[in-house]
């Protein structure tokens, strides 16, 4: 009978058996690493219409986070401030700075606001409430990083579900006294007088599906 396949065809199946298992593992590992928000989202730092520096305002000038993001203790969102908040100071400070032109323009023309680009965005199907996390005394820095050192704000943490759950399962390392929530440099190591274990006993973060997917 005529030969249909060359002798080398015999190697196909052993070759497949050798390639398939590592190939499958590589595909899973690749998807796990490259498709996760830790790879895709961390470091996102969009350009803003005004080069507002958190390093200058929150860091060097020491303005409290809540001066601008004033709804954070009551609302689910930490509001981006209205132009009038900026103008509280900039009416008298740097009144002729060219980079502040969009701010002054927005103050005079309320129909033409400054269009900031959102940095931290959770999916619509995840319910998140800032006030709850404030009440549980989780520091801003836990999720947002050292914003007081950022000239341009970037996403520091993955904000993935697994990352949320890590703290919901064990909130203790991220808790602090209620008065120190916005203190970016505060750490538990520097403040041994704070009893994180006792505080953790008072907060009950949900771990069931409908805690966040309502």
């Amino acid at each position, binding site marked *: *009978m*005529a030969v*249909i*396949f060359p002798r080398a*065809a*015999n190697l196909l*199946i052993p070759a497949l058996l050798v390639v398939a298992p590592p190939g499958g593992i590589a595909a*899973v*590992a690749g*998807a*796990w690493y490259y*498709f*996760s*928000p*830790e790879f895709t989202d961390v470091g996102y730092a969009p350009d803003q219409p005004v080069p507002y520096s958190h390093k200058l305002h929150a860091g060097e000038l020491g303005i409290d986070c809540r001066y601008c993001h004033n709804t954070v203790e009551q609302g689910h969102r930490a509001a981006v401030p209205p132009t009038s908040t900026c103008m509280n100071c900039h009416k008298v400070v740097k009144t002729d700075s060219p980079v502040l032109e969009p701010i002054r323009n927005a103050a005079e023309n309320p129909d033409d606001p400054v269009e900031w680009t959102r940095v931290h965005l959770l999916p619509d199907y995840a319910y998140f409430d800032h006030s709850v996390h404030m009440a549980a005394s989780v520091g801003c820095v836990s999720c947002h990083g050292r914003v007081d050192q950022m000239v341009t704000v970037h996403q520091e943490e*993955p904000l*993935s*579900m*697994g*990352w949320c*759950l*890590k703290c919901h399962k064990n909130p203790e390392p991220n808790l602090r006294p209620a008065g120190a929530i916005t203190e970016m440099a505060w750490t538990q190591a520097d403040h041994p007088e704070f009893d994180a274990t006792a505080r953790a006993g008072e907060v009950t973060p949900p771990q069931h599906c409908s805690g966040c997917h309502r």
Partner: protein
Amino acid sequence: MTTKVYTEADQLRGDVHVRAPLVLGGLDFNGVTEKIAAVIEKPDKRWFAALAFSLALLSIYGVCIVIVVWEGIGVWGNRAPVYWGWPIVNFVFWIGIGHAGTLISAILFLFRQKWRTGINRSAEAMTLFAVVCALSFPTIHVGRIWLLYWFAPLPNQMDVWPNFRSPLLWDFFAVSVYGSVSALFWFTGCVPDFATMRDRADTQLKRIAYGAVALGWRGSNRHWHNYEVAYLILAGISTPLVLSVHSIVSFDFATSQLPGWHTTIFPPYFVAGAIFSGFGMVMTLLIPSRKIFDLEEIITIRHMENMCKIILLTGTMVGYAYGMEFFIAWYGQNPYESFAFVNRAFGPYAWAYWIMISCNVFIPQVFWIKKFRTTPWIMFIISIFVNIGMWFERFVIIVTSLTADFLPSSWGYFSPTIIDVGCFVGSFGLFGTLYCLFVRFVPQVSITEVKVVMEQADPHWEGYHLAEEGH
């Protein structure tokens, strides 16, 4: 030495001292090969008609799937309180169908039931296609099918892991194992036949295609030895699956606390029903098939009669389970359980319940009469009733328990939508298309195994040493 010509009369004589022959019409080894290969080499016009019809139904399924995925599963009739409607009914129906193939190929093999060789190939193929149809329903039922991989235990950024305490997950594993083992078993059995088809091929394309799936089979002694060992091992692996898969499917219901579902009889009762429905479907396929493809001398009336006996047995077992459910509902003195069963038989779904009882328990009883077990058109009609009855069994179990549970304020009545009907009817198109393609390209009877049960293969056969005809 000429081959003795056996006829149906030899098979039906009923002489207990003589084993009835399994290949009729005086076929020798070569005759068997020619007969089975002819189905593939000379396609019948009616095959094209069957394929066209199946494809038409399949396109209905395709359209319905697009609608379900695009619009969401709200297009089905699944509403409070019945969130498991027809799609789950269809899933259980199809997965049950598959069991006959595994029983024939594995358990009958281990018990050395020689008559399995005429029907095992097509029954196993039917198993595979039924598993495909069955899996299509949970796949679209998840709604967001692009997230289907969440079923698998893969590392992910959500830290979500399958819930290993959920019977739905056991189902996922049971059915995937079942599908892959069945496919492997079926393929292993096909290898020598693919080699036969390769050697008979008249075009280079066929030689390459059959050659590739024949895996270099040359029929050497060592090949046969390895083949027999592999086949036996796979039969051993498949055997527990006959019992385990539908047991686990029944856990979807039995591990819940719903009256009418929460019963320990479910696993054996489901397995018996699955084998019952599977043999019904094998008969529905083989009775026309053996006629159209001229295989009545290989898939003989005796094969059919044996399957009728299994249908009679398993149908009666299912009937016993129905009775036992009622007995326990009364004996257990749980008012919710009693209500669930009285409601099944005499409540708003009494019509479905009595269709189920008639088709599954009463109608198969005619197989006590030999005349009915040996007349193909009667068997065909009864096999259709079996299929109908077993679909209704799942409908009754799922819908009656869900529509009337503990809380009367949430009781309801389930009505399917046109999409439900389209998906169910369309799934027969998927099944039919796959089966049509199978009979067109794969020897639908195992050429190899049929020869083994012929008297010519027996060293004690009077003409054994004189046999000249090759195969």
